[in-house]
């Protein structure tokens, strides 16, 4: 009997993903939106590792590595965009103020 059944893993990942999705939908600060995206990526990675443990296949952790690379790139580019917007003299980090595609 494993510590964690696959159903439990799926349930926890669903809860975690919902928390991240709620963060993206509710918060308007761009740093908080990036953190919520990271929580959602973590939930997806947890499903991959849980499925790899369920069928005892190393492919789940291979996918975990790729998700890790994806999260690193996403965070780096997103934070660079935030720094760029802040350096242009934008007073807040509100994501809804940047909807005109003008400098």
């Amino acid at each position, binding site marked *: *009997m*494993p*510590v*964690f*059944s696959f159903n*439990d*893993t799926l349930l*926890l990942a669903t*809860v*975690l993903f919902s*928390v*991240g999705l*709620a*963060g993206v939908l*509710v*918060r308007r*600060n761009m*740093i*908080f939106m*990036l*953190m*919520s995206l*990271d*929580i959602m990526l*973590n939930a997806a*990675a*947890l499903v991959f*590792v*849980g499925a*790899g*443990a369920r069928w*005892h296949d*190393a*492919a*789940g*952790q*291979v996918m*975990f*590595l*790729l998700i*890790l*690379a*994806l*999260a*690193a*790139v*996403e*965070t*780096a*580019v997103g*934070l*660079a*965009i*935030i*720094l*760029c917007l*802040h*350096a*242009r003299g934008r007073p807040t*980090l509100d994501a809804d103020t940047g909807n005109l595609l003008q400098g």
Partner: protein
Amino acid sequence: MHALALLAASVTVIGATMVITRKVAVHAVLYLVATMLGLAALLVMLGGSFAAMLEIIIYAGAIMVLFVFVIMMLNLGQPDSAREKEWLRPHVWLGPGVLAAIICAELLYCIVPLSDSVPSVVPITAHDVGLSLFGRYVLMVELASFLLLAGLVAAFHIGRNRVEDR
């Protein structure tokens, strides 16, 4: 579900909930680190110790440091000394500290060899992951390297424009 797994799962979910409800970004980063630690404990219990190690080193180490650097560079408003005094007050680090202490207690409980209560799962070691990664999935490694290169170039380009415009 085992009690240790339940504890780590609740630490993860509570940390994630606290992340999206904080007002100050630094507090959210601290809670996010605690969330990553809880998730790493869960990954160990699922048999993915290699994945848990990478989770701690890369997520809780590298990516969170990126967040902290950017929050420091944004420098939103307050003078430095007041902000540092604000960060060192206990109510800032008490919650994430408690969550991380729960994970640490689980670790200490599990490395004591007398406590044989944790049922063993068959682990997938780094050897298996490496064989699979550079065997069947070597093309995806190449694609991930392209992605990392693209991210590097994009971040450099965006940052360089900022310097020129000022």
